[in-house]
């Protein structure tokens, strides 16, 4: 075996090292040091994140099962940034009374799921993809059930688990069809073997794969678990689910669709995505309009955001890919900004409904401010990053120069108005409602503060500083061979 092939996967290896160190710390350090575990993990992961920014060699490993390219590297770096923010936000929570005993497991599982996602991102073989997906999924069920004394947490875990297994069955069914058609699991081989013949089996295969991955992305109609799980799971897990899990799945989804099914893009999965995007954005928005629980509200908002991410995929070009990655990055900062505030408030007061936030600006101006820019960014209001990411994602989609896509974008744009409405509801509650605020002036932990500040800065700067997008575009251009089949 050629061990040098491990050299092209430094990010995965680094992650494993972090995991191992955390595991060792958790297992062997004395109890009095255990309280520092969250800080230790976060710091270690921070170091690793910086490390993961160093460029890696492109190439294939394990007989073409694993690919490392600029795009995967950048995607993983983005995921790392998001992970770091999640970790920062969860430090205080992980040390809280009921969680403290199992905090080691929390971090280990979290890191493991991230590893699974890395595999998904880099996979160039159905098998590795499936393994990555399951590695990313399974521990999350355990994590969702983490708040042992909350019934909701368990219900969330159950719903997640059953749906996850169901979706994995569907995905496997799709994959088995693909195998039946082409006799291989390797993306490159599959692409050429599938050809552009439209057999019913192929269409079914595409549909089932879309449905299987659609679960991770919570695309409508495969989304129904999302809201319940987001609401029931601990906030740290919810935020992780909503951004990291979604981001990695989106990237892997893109790779599968364009590489494996690239030949049937225009006839088959473009229209599937077309319908799914419209449904996802619209239904997500329509559900979000009514929500009073902020976590549930963000769940639906994240569903509709997933629809926008899909616009980058339906584009099936480098601009779309760039925009999608950029969108994910921005979405990570915006959504985590919102979750940071929710988590900070929930940890101290247990309040998570919009009505509790009435008049928040008076008692906690900075929390309100962070929440507001997060909301504006999600809604796509300049000068916040969300505006840029939305604009670019639309630009990517429209580059297909297909009239139907114009209609799609128009529908998406009209939906932004609905989404603006519910994001503004939160802003309204915080700033405009003059009632007595039920949330006293809170003192956030340093880690929460850092997380929020990072998010706020990210929201403000990522858009204005154009080099990030330009850089991602360069990365995507390097991977333009992905789109050879389109």
């Amino acid at each position, binding site marked *: 075996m050629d061990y040098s092939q491990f050299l092209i996967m430094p990010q995965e290896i680094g992650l494993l090292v972090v995991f191992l160190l955390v595991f060792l710390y958790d297992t062997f350090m004395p109890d009095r040091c255990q309280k520092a575990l969250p800080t230790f993990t976060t710091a270690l992961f921070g170091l690793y994140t910086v490390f993961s920014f160093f460029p890696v060699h492109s190439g294939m490993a394990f007989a073409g099962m694993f690919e490392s390219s600029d795009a995967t590297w950048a995607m993983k770096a983005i995921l790392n940034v998001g992970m770091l923010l999640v970790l920062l936000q969860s430090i205080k929570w992980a040390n809280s009374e009921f969680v403290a005993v199992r905090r080691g497991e929390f971090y280990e599982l979290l890191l493991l799921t991230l590893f699974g996602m890395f595999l998904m991102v880099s996979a160039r073989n159905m098998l590795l993809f499936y393994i990555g997906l399951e590695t990313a999924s399974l521990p999350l069920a355990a994590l969702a059930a983490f708040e042992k004394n909350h019934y909701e947490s368990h219900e969330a875990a159950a719903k997640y688990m059953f749906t996850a297994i169901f979706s994995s069955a569907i995905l496997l069914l799709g994959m088995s069809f693909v195998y039946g058609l082409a006799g291989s699991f390797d993306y490159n081989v599959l692409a050429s073997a599938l050809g552009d013949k439209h057999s019913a089996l192929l269409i079914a295969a595409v549909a089932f794969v879309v449905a299987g991955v659609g679960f991770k992305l919570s695309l409508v109609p495969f989304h129904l678990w999302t809201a319940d799980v987001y609401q029931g799971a601990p906030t740290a897990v919810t935020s992780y689910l909503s951004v990291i899990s979604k981001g990695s799945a989106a990237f892997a989804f893109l790779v599968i669709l364009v590489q494996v099914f690239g030949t049937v893009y225009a006839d088959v999965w473009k229209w599937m995505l077309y319908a799914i995007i419209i449904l996802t954005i619209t239904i997500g928005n329509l559900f979000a309009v009514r929500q009073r629980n902020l976590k549930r509200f963000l769940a639906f908002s994240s569903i509709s955001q997933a629809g926008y991410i899909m616009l980058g995929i339906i584009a099936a070009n480098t*601009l779309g890919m*760039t925009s999608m990655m950029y969108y994910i990055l921005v979405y990570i900062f915006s959504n985590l900004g919102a979750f940071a505030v929710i988590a900070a408030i929930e940890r101290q007061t247990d309040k998570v409904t919009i009505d509790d936030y009435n008049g928040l600006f008076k008692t906690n101006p900075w929390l309100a401010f962070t929440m507001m820019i997060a909301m*504006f960014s999600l809604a796509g*209001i*300049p*000068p916040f990053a969300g*505006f*840029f990411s939305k*604009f*670019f994602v*639309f*630009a990517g989609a*429209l*580059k297909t*120069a297909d009239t139907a896509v*114009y209609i799609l*974008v*128009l529908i998406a*744009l*009209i939906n*932004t*108005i609905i989404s*603006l*409405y519910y994001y*503004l509801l939160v*802003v*309204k509650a915080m*700033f*405009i409602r003059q009632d007595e605020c039920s949330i006293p002036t809170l003192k956030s932990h340093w880690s929460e503060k850092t997380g929020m500040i990072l998010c706020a800065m990210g929201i403000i700067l990522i858009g204005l500083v*154009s080099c990030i*997008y*330009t850089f991602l*575009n360069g990365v995507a251009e390097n991977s333009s061979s992905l789109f050879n089949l389109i």
Partner: protein
Amino acid sequence: MEIFSNILIYFVIVPLLTLAGLALCRNKGIGAIRTVAVMGASALMILAITLVVMFLKERGAGNNAEMILTASWTWYAPLNVKLALGVDGVSVVMILLSAFIVFAGVFASWKMDPLPKQFFLWFFLLSTGVFGFFISIDLFTMFMFYEVALIPMYLLIGVWGSGNKNYSAMKLTLMLMGGSAFLMLGILGIYFHSSADGNLTMNVLEIAQNNAIPENWQLFLFPMTFVGFGVLGAMFPFHTWSPDGHASAPTAVSMLHAGVLMKLGGYGCFRVAIYLMPFAASQLSWIFLTLTGISIVYGAFSACVQTDLKYINAYSSVSHCGMVLFAILMFNQTAMTGAVLQMLSHGLMTALFFALIGMIYGRTHTRDIRDMGGLMQIMPFLGVGYVIAGLASLGLPGLSGFVAEMTIFVGSYENADVFRRVLTILGTSSIVITAVYILRVVGKLLFGAVQNEHHKQLTDANWFERLSTTTLMVSVAIIGCFPNFFVDIIRDSFVPVVNALSDFFPVVIR
């Protein structure tokens, strides 16, 4: 740095610095907040005047470029988005207008309560958007600044407004953002068809030069952009945000909104929709002409029966702004010049109106004209100011409204087709209806016997209120008395667009 050698960029930097300065103020330090705000507004005014002088100098020196002071820096290279600056006569006068209104607005909100700091923060964020919009010639930055200017309205109305403010603020924001949704699609569509040889660009000038947007695409994109901007320009039937929004907004916000923000609509319609898509403009203008024609008359008629001062003004704005779009769609230099004059005029006089209404409301705590009367005896300064604003609105020569409307009417009549002429005459009739509602409100509000005994104790305007309104009154009079100064600046800016149109439309070039 090179970027700082262009005066235009300071129109964004100064408001941003003001924002920073305000952010540093303490929440309670009202003195410091006011100082910073006044400094920022004054700096903008000085900049704007400097810009006018520079512009005249450049033009005087024979610089006949379409845009002057142009500069561009690449921002988002993959999409060829640039921070492209440049002004022509239209933008120069719009910047001047905005600077005046921001200046007056600061004084009109002198006693803002509660949260003065936050108020001014949003206020200047809004100004940043407005100025940024006018100095940009890149579609992306234009659009970005456009939205930057829109969203602060929500909080400005929501927090500091009055009446049914939640509903109004939400409606206003959603409708305007709805417009900008169409606009975004339009802009992206323009971008992707901006060039025949694949060098896509966002720069308005380059797009116009390439003239590559296919005709069928123009027919699709033109309505998108026109409606997008038209919503902000209060075009029938997308105007309903205006009455509610204005009625609920605090004084300075109404001023800025009616005075400047609504102008973004007209400016955008001309700069983006018509200039870049002359074919579609000539094909579809009849639809929008009809709509704007309806706007003019409809707004005026609606204003006749309102009883809330702000509603009257909001509907009158619908009518006047309708005239702006109406004139732009007349496709000749004179009418378009008139449109810009009308923007200036309407901006200043509506700002004056709203300032005065705010001051009256601040004293009487009612805006219902049925509850007021005889205010002229109690507050002569405000009364006289109101009469002047009213006379400007109904088009008294010597004040700005007359100049603008006459230019529009004469220009519109230049078109030889019957459809446009009939509409012109229909539009002309608004001068009578305007007189009706203005005189109605003046008569009820200012003249007659004092309706409410409590009003007798009220005082006349303070020094800052006087400063704010006097600035606007003098501006209105200056435009009215020396229109050619402005016409000379504006007129030539329409040559390119009229030339572009002349391929598809029998434009009258005289």
